[in-house]
C-alpha cells in the first residue's frame, strides 16, 4: 500500500521568513497537462512593500561584508542546491513538463551559473574599477559599488530555476539586495530555492521572493522610491515602457527585458553598480 504524500505549502520569502501573502490570496499552479500541482501565494503590493523594507534593512550588512565572505556565502548556496537537485528536477518536470534529462540540465546550468557569479564577488571591482592617473597631486580610484535595493522580474517563459538564478545572482554579487518576482506560472522552484537560501548562510532580507503576477507587482516596484534599480529581464511581455516611465520619477536605473535566459556576463553585475571616484591629496609633506 502506497504512502499518502505530504504536499508542501508554497509561501513567500521575505526577510528570511516564509510568510503567507498578507492578502490571503493563493493561485493554482498546474502541470503542463493542466493538473493541479500546488497553491502558490499570490503576492500583493503590501507584500512587495514589506519585501523592500527587508531588502533595505539587509543591504548595508550584505554590501558591508567582505567580498570574500559574500563569495563564500554565494558558493554555499550552490553546494546546498547541488545536494537538493532531485527536488528541483521533480518540480521542473512536474510544472514545466520537461523531461528528466532537460530538467537535470536546467538544474546543472543553474548551479554552474551560480558558481560563475559567486566567483566574481571578489573580482568585479578589480576588473570594473580603475586607478586614474589624474594630473595633479591626487590619489584617485574609481570603484564600482552596489546600487542598493534592486527589484527584478525573472524570465517568464524560460526555465524557472535557471531564469531566476541568472537574474538574481549578478545582482547579489556586488552587495545589492533583491526583491524578485519569479516565473508566474512556475513559481515552485523559486520557493524551493528560497528554502536553499534559508538553510545556507544568506542573511535574511538579502533575497526576497514574491510569487504572483508580474503585471500586478511590477508597477509597484517601478514606482517605489526605495528601490534603486529595476531588472526587467522577464518583463518583455509587460508594458515595460510604462514601467520605465514610472521608474524615471526617481531616476531608478532600469535594465531592459531580454529574450530567454539572461546570458552570464560581467555587464549584468556592473549594471547594478555605481562607480564612485575617490580623490585624496597626495604629497610627501
Amino acid at each position: 500500500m502506497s504512502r499518502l504524500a505530504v504536499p508542501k505549502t508554497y509561501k513567500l520569502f521575505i526577510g528570511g521568513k516564509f510568510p503567507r501573502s498578507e492578502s490571503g490570496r493563493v493561485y493554482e499552479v498546474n502541470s503542463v497537462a493542466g493538473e493541479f500541482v500546488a497553491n502558490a501565494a499570490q503576492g500583493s503590493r503590501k507584500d512587495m512593500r514589506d519585501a523592500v523594507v527587508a531588502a533595505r534593512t539587509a543591504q548595508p550588512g550584505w554590501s558591508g561584508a567582505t567580498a570574500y565572505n559574500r563569495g563564500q556565502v554565494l558558493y554555499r548556496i550552490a553546494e546546498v542546491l547541488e545536494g537538493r537537485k532531485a527536488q528541483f528536477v521533480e518540480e521542473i518536470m512536474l510544472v514545466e513538463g520537461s523531461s528528466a534529462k532537460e530538467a537535470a540540465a536546467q538544474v546543472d546550468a543553474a548551479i554552474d551559473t551560480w558558481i560563475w557569479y559567486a566567483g566574481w564577488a571578489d573580482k568585479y571591482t578589480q576588473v570594473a574599477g580603475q586607478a586614474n592617473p589624474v594630473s595633479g597631486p591626487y590619489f584617485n580610484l574609481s570603484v564600482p559599488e552596489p546600487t542598493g535595493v534592486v527589484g527584478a522580474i525573472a524570465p517568464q517563459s524560460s526555465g524557472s530555476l535557471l531564469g531566476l538564478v541568472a537574474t538574481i545572482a549578478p545582482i547579489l554579487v556586488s552587495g545589492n539586495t533583491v526583491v524578485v518576482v519569479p516565473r508566474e506560472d512556475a513559481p515552485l522552484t523559486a520557493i524551493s530555492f528560497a528554502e536553499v537560501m534559508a538553510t545556507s548562510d544568506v542573511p535574511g532580507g538579502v533575497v526576497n521572493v514574491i510569487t504572483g503576477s508580474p503585471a500586478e507587482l511590477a508597477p509597484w516596484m517601478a514606482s517605489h522610491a526605495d528601490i534603486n534599480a529595476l531588472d526587467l529581464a522577464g518583463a518583455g511581455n509587460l508594458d515595460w515602457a510604462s514601467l520605465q516611465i514610472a521608474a524615471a520619477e526617481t531616476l531608478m536605473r532600469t535594465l531592459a527585458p531580454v529574450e530567454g535566459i539572461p546570458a552570464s556576463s560581467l555587464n549584468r553585475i556592473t549594471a547594478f553598480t555605481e562607480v564612485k571616484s575617490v580623490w585624496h591629496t597626495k604629497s610627501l609633506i
Partner: protein
Amino acid sequence: MRSIPAVSDLTAESLADFLRALPGVDAVGLEARAADLGTRSIKTSSKAWAIDTIIKLIDLTTLEGADTPGKVRTLVAKALVPDAGDLSTPTVAAVCVYGDMVATAVEALGDMHGDPDQGKVSVAAVATAFPSGRSSLAIKIADTQEAVAAGADEIDMVIDRGAFLSGDWWTVFQQIVAVKEACRRADGTHAHLKVILETGELVTYDNVRKASWLAMLAGGDFIKTSTGKVAPAATLPVTLLMLEAVRDWYAATGQRIGVKPAGGIKTTKDAIKYLVVVAETVGEEWLVPHLFRFGASSLLNDVLLQRQKLASGHYSSADYVTLD
C-alpha cells in the same frame, strides 16, 4: 580660539601637548592656496605702491665669510640711497650682517641709524652660531649680547634644528627664551628677536607650523623662514603657513608677530606675490617694517629696475643700477 599658555607656565610636557594639538597641514591644499594667491595681477598704481613697499621692507643682507668693513660700508650706502638716479626711492628697512660687523654698520649709518618705521635704517645681526646653530647655549648668549652691545637693533637667531627634529622641543624653547633675555639692553629695552626656523631643514609643513608656534610662545618678535644658506630657503607656501600661525596668534593674544621670508626671493614679481599673501592672510596692516621683512640681497636691484621702468615707461638695464 585656542588659549595660549604663558611662558612661565610652560613645561616640557605642556609645550609638547600644545604643539601636538595644533591642527595639521595638508600640503596640497596649502600649496594650491599659495599658487592661487600668486596669480593676483598687480598693475599700475598698485604695482607702484608695491615696489616702494618692497624696498621699505628689505633687510639688505651680506652674510659671507669674506665680508669686510669696506663691503659692509658699501652695503649701508646702498641701503640709504638705493638708486642715485632717483632720490625719491625709499630706504630699506635694515642692513643684516654678522655680529662682528655691527659696529661698522652702525657707524656707517650715522644719523640714519634707527627705526625703519620712522624712515631710518636698522642694523640686524645674525647670531647664535649662525647658520648651523651648533654651539653651546653659553656661546649663543655671548654671541647675542655682543651684537646687542655693539648696537644691533635686531637679532636674527637660529633655532637648534637638531633638537627640534629629535623631538626635544623644550630645549629649542628654552634657548629662544634665553636668547630673548640676552637681547635685553641695560636700559630695559631689548633688541627685536627674529627666530629663524630654517624651514628647509624642518622639511615638513607640520614641523614648520609647530616651530612657528614654539617660537611665538618663547617670545620671538618675528619668525623667519631661513638662513639663506640652506635650500630651499623661503617659499610662498611656507610663508603663507607662517602667516597663518601669526594670524591665529593675533586672534588669540591681540599681539602682532612679524614674518620674514629670507633667501631665494630674487624678483619683483616674486616679492609682489609675498605682499599679496601677507595682505590676504593677515591684512595689509602687516606690510610695515616692524611686521614684515624680506631677507634678500639681489632682490633690491630687480625692484629698482622695475621702478625705473614704471617711471620712464621703458625697460631699464642692469647697468643703470649699482651692483652694491
